[in-house]
């Protein structure tokens, strides 16, 4: 990639990055942009915008329910794109779309990437588009539209495969804290720390951003001890469920 992507720029900042995931169109259909703006205002470094899917099999109940809710209330790929139209006039932090591969496939992978580029999306996280299928069929398209494809790494990922993924990545590695579906766990244990440390010690090309099970300031601190940053998802969704879209900033204040 010739031009520097917003994600890559952000990763060079000398700080631990806070990234937040939320489901587009949740809690209210029209909340998407409001939440993005509020997150940036409150100092969030990066945002994963969840494109809701009917069968989110890597997700725990919290994200599942938010997705179902968003879909029931009319969220579609097309609607999300139109909500995000002009978003780059409002926010400048990296924006990543996170979702399952099928809606992308139906939209047309190239059309989807083209649209992302137009809007100013910086990367995609598609958990069910793994390295091999990506490389076989889609890498060229992603590259052509300057989109980073972010891959996951789990405690069970072998060193060999980590290096393979690292070689194929140009942004960060999404370090899944424990092999599990999404959903806030009650805390981080020694296992997680050892695992983060082990990966950190591998001297990879790409920085690590931890995710899954990070819910508050304490776990954020733990998760970022050996990584470049961390992503909070389910805990944020839960907070929104209880307090509404306007509370997005309050949630961030509790972390930072």
């Amino acid at each position, binding site marked *: 990639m010739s031009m520097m992507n917003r994600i890559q720029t952000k990763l060079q900042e000398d700080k631990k990055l806070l990234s937040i995931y939320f489901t587009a169109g949740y809690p209210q259909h029209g909340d998407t942009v409001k939440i993005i703006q509020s997150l940036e205002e409150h100092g969030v470094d990066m945002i994963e915008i969840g494109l809701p899917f*009917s069968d989110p099999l*890597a997700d725990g109940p919290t994200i599942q329910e938010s997705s179902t809710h968003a879909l029931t209330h009319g969220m579609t790929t097309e609607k999300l794109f139109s909500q995000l139209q002009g978003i780059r006039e409002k926010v400048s932090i990296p924006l990543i779309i996170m979702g399952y*591969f099928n809606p992308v496939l139906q939209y047309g992978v190239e059309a989807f990437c083209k649209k992302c580029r137009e809007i100013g999306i910086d990367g995609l996280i598609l958990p069910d588009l*793994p390295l091999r299928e990506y490389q076989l069929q889609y890498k060229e398209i992603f590259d052509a539209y300057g989109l980073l494809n972010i891959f996951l*790494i789990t405690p069970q990922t072998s060193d060999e495969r980590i290096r393979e993924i690292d070689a194929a990545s140009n942004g960060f590695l999404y370090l899944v804290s424990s092999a599990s579906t999404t959903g806030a766990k009650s805390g981080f244990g020694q296992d997680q720390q050892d695992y983060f440390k082990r990966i950190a010690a591998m001297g990879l090309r790409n920085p690590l951003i931890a995710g899954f099970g990070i819910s508050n300031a304490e776990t954020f601190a733990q998760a970022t001890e050996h990584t470049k940053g961390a992503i909070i998802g389910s805990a944020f969704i839960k907070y929104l469920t209880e307090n509404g879209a306007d509370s997005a900033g309050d949630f961030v204040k509790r972390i930072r």
Partner: protein
Amino acid sequence: MTYNVDENGYYGEFGGAYIPEMLYPNTEEIRQQYLQIMQDPVFEKEFNDLLRDYVGRPTPLYYASRLSEHCGTRIYLKREDLCHTGAHKVNNTIGQILLAKRLGKQRIIAETGAGQHGVATATVCALMGMECIVYMGTVDIERQAPNVARMKMLGATVRAANSGSKTLKDATNEAIRDWINNPVDTHYIIGSVVGPHPYPDMVARFQSVISAEIKAQLQEKEGRSRPDYVVACVGGGSNAAGAYYHYLDDTQVGLIAVEAAGKGVDSGESAATSYLGKTGIIHGSKTLLMQTPDGQITEPYSISAGLDYPGVGPMHAHLYASGRGEFISITDDEAMKAGRMLARLEGIIPAIETAHAFAIFEKRKFKADDLVVINLSGRGDKDLQTYIDYFKL
């Protein structure tokens, strides 16, 4: 041209392994080892011995003379209904439990729709003394109550899947979630030729004993190993895959796949994937899939829990797309009537899934001397309540 899987796990453009990284070590472990394990003579012997002594194979190939006369063609039934636990599903679970043992797993999970795969999994887990958890949609738990009781008798835990349409698709989602959360000690016994590579191929191979037997049995009975048609119902497609397997590349044999049209293909309550589906990703595989234009998976509907699935296995997607397979959709009503017809003419009450395959004679004419093999994938004991309610017995 071959209609079988290629080295990358694709059938034409269908297949592959569209899985989250959390599942990579598990599926990769299987991918790397399954062929080697399956071809190990010790494994082969264990598998074949259990198929013979425990499952009751070979299952008969039975010439249905009254049905043949009624339908004006020559019909053989491949009697998978006589397998231990009452359907073809157990061929696969025997294979996979042996494989799981080889891989050192201690815990087994499975999804089930009709409950036949759940029962078959619970059965082999009891046989091997392994822990067993079966996910099943709440709707299916209700309509296939006898199978729920069987699983419990066998010591399995049945967990209800409450999302979506609360049927097979959702049970599969839950099983995959379990697997993601238990990546080390757990083997996921998928019940059909669906899921990420190498599952479709592995399950098809375990089920291929069906067509291996058909070939030998037809040779003995008819002096030819090739029928004119092989007919099977298709939910995920495992019984069909098994019945087609050794004929896949023999284009003189017509392959007929029967799908569930529910209340009618265009009624909005249907599970006729080939007619209604477009290429998409479900449960780790690129295949034909019932979905919205937006790529959300549609809730399917069929009176038969085992066909109530919005996708088909990638082998079948390819058979459809390439024209190699002929796809016919059958409504609930047609299937129910065909089930009763088989009971009355041949003394065999089929599973409602299976009954779909017997309804094609109203839609599709055969020549008097055509030799048609129907895969009688399962018995109807699990469906008695549905039959009672439908026919007011």
